[in-house]
């Protein structure tokens, strides 16, 4: 019995998830081929679509990394949602109120997002290491608290943009969308006229976030595999007792781990503000960024590059999904069903093994009986 390599497993699971999706579509009376064709066409239609996929994937990469990082260190971070909210809020406050030249403003705004997310993560870490409060409970609670903090802060006069339910917009110096404010000036528009491909991409809020996300992937991979800190975090994750016995200060590492996980989710929020939304708005409900991160982390086997790939995959579905309704009248919830099925099949390495064995023995029998 050979074990399936992760890549094959992922491939099979994606396929199986798509098949389940197709079955659901068939059952509901839709044509699955047309659906998938639309999905793919919707994603590969034009350069702007690739750009949108990257834009959508950026926060997923980072919240996915956040959850994956925590997983690797033995913690279950359900709190990426709240950390994302805090990061977005922190970055917005900094981007709005601290005027600086872009060279400083851009990185420091990111840092503000990172720090706010990290602080929010650290709260859960401290609650766990100091009082033994299960991080699953505390992060669920902290998500809601973050949401209401966001809503309170956004309503503060002076931060709230008049006549809106959103904050003021960050200064142009903190923006990271390519050619940010310039692209809508007359010169910018003239330039775009002459560059059809670039123009197509510039129609989208294409931004540097994906590059930052890639850097984060590399850094996390490096941290986990190549540094003493990462080694120790993993050791704590696998076996707290052994780690403590060997002289690792476990409580401190729990806090560090949650803070770093929070930093990644906070960065996700910050980049979204700097690159796309430029503001934070009152939230009527959880947006699901953190929960999507859990899915991405799981599909990516909590490996940094796996997370990256999973985020792209999810980005494709998220971008293609809404096109199903206008084209074919298919409810976009089919995307959720496909995602759920993919994750489900990923959770089932056993089923592939069983299938493979059944297949082998079946084939074996046939060979034998044909003799």
């Amino acid at each position, binding site marked *: 019995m050979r074990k399936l390599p992760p890549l094959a497993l992922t491939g099979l699971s994606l396929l199986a998830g798509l098949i389940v999706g197709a079955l659901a579509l068939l059952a509901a009376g839709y044509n699955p081929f047309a659906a998938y064709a639309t999905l793919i066409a919707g994603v590969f239609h034009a350069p702007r679509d690739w750009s949108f996929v990257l834009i959508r994937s950026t926060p997923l990469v980072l919240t996915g990394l956040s959850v994956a990082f925590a997983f690797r260190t033995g913690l279950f971070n359900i709190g990426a949602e709240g950390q994302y909210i805090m990061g977005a809020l922190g970055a917005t406050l900094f981007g709005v109120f601290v005027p600086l030249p872009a060279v400083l403003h851009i990185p420091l705004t990111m840092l503000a997002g990172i720090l706010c997310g990290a602080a929010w993560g650290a709260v859960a870490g401290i609650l766990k290491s100091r009082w033994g409060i299960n991080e699953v409970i505390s992060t669920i609670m902290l998500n809601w608290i973050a949401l209401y903090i966001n809503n309170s802060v956004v309503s503060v006069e002076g931060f709230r943009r008049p006549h809106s339910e959103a904050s003021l917009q960050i200064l142009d110096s903190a923006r990271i969308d390519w050619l940010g404010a310039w692209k809508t000036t007359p010169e910018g528009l003239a330039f775009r006229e002459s560059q059809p491909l670039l123009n197509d991409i510039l129609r989208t809020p294409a931004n540097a976030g994906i590059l930052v996300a890639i850097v984060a992937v590399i850094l996390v991979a490096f941290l986990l595999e*190549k*540094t003493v800190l990462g080694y120790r975090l993993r*050791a704590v994750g*696998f076996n707290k007792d052994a780690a403590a*016995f060997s*002289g690792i200060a476990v409580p401190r590492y729990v806090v560090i781990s949650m803070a770093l996980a929070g930093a990644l989710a906070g960065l996700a929020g910050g980049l979204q503000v700097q690159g796309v939304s430029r503001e934070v708005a009152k939230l009527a409900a959880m947006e699901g960024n953190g929960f999507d991160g859990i899915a991405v982390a799981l599909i990516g086997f909590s490996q940094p590059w796996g997370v990256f790939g999973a985020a792209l995959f999810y980005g494709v579905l998220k971008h293609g999904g809404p096109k199903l309704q206008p084209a074919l009248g298919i409810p976009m919830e089919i995307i959720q069903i496909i995602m759920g099925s993919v994750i489900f099949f990923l959770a089932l390495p056993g089923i592939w093994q069983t299938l493979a064995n059944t297949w082998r023995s079946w084939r074996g029998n046939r060979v034998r009986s044909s003799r």
Partner: protein
Amino acid sequence: MADSPALELKGFTKTFGSLVANDNIDLEIRAGEVHALLGENGAGKTTLMNCAYGVYQPDRGTIYRLGKQVTVRSPADALAQGIGMVHQHFMLVDRFTVAENLVLGQEPRRHGVLLDRRKAEEAVLDLGERYGLRVDPRAVIEDLSVGAQQKVEILKALYRGAEILILDEPTAVLTPQEIHDLGKIIRQLCGDGKSVILITHKLKEILSFADRCTVIRKGVKVATLEVSQTDQDELASMMVGRKVQWHLERREFQPGSVVLRVEELWARDYRGLEALKGLSFEVRAGEILAVAGVEGNGQTELLDILCGLKAPTGGRISIDGQPIERPDPGKLRELGFNAIPEDRQRKGLVLEFQVGENLVLDSVHVPPFSQRGLLNLQAIRENAARNIEGYDIRPPNPVALASALSGGNQQKVVIARALANQPRLIVAAQPTRGLDVGAIEFVHRALLNQRDAGCAILLVSFELDEVLELADRILVLYEGRSQGVFDRAEATEDVLGRAMAGAAHA
């Protein structure tokens, strides 16, 4: 059919992947006998018994019970055939009571669905009375000593009508007194016509409890012997395939300066009861101080405190004159402290890490294993290769996961790590628990080498043999207090045994 064997295994073969754990083994168990199984770590003893008990399915092999072929596809089948097994790692639900554990799966009922606790408790008392296995039926398992837990395991098998009782390394975790009790129980069971299969690494026990003994080496049966016609040396060499040295040479006792000083140490256990009551001692460079005593007399607390995992309620500890103010394993390591933990899987190893990674668990932050926070994978690999070679860790693969090693080899990894970097002080807790004689010899030699190199060693062991073999001085711990410190020369099993039972130092 009166003289058909109670149990007969024929042609048992069991493979795990490419590994042949049992190779065509025959085994015959007579009614009323104690049959010992002997073999090195990983020889295949547990596997064979797991097959007989239906936990595993053998690739080939047939089972005969009183001459009749039977099929055993699950533990339930085995129990139905009167085969019971007490596993090496207990199969008890820690948070259930003794009575609940006893009846699980075959519960006495009221109204068809309700658990009849009273009947269950009575069953514990009745069976206990009959076989001399007295345990409080309402006690929760996790509050019981290992010895008592073992009694529950045996009761469980008896409750299910076991006629053949398999005991897998029952004595590895018992105190001498408990081992003695177990011997009596085993004899009583045999007197009742039951058969006992006893797996153990302790040759002395085989000689004193068993009627016959089957030796297995690398999955193959070597021989079955009448115990009355053999001796330790023969058994040992059959088992490991070479002669075993029972007594190691040691350099003369040349103690140096005091390395570890413990003064008036007080501590509470997890229930808040006084576990250490003003314990004082010192360990000098170049000596092995053994702490002897029956389990549960404060050893766990002493070890936790020394390893920096727990704060004492009173007292002082210093290493090389440096006072240790608060629990901090990290700082202890800087002072040249190293330790072999009691529980290798829980505290000793990160099972999901590779062998090489485990070997640097406590030293990864210092050169050469890392510089400025970055790992030096090359150095870690080289270190692994060196230790695998030096400690004969099998399989010799630095990137194998620790979880894939047998217990004996896992222990070697822990020991290799503890002895690295010329430590000033080693605290060794039960360093040979569950190891075969060959491996024990190896570990003992390694510890003695450290002593000879001037290291101070504190050995905590429940094995008197081990204590007598290794120690330069012996402290007997009883109810959290020292019953006196004995020199190697004056310490005999008798003297120590009395002190361990609480008799004051004469």
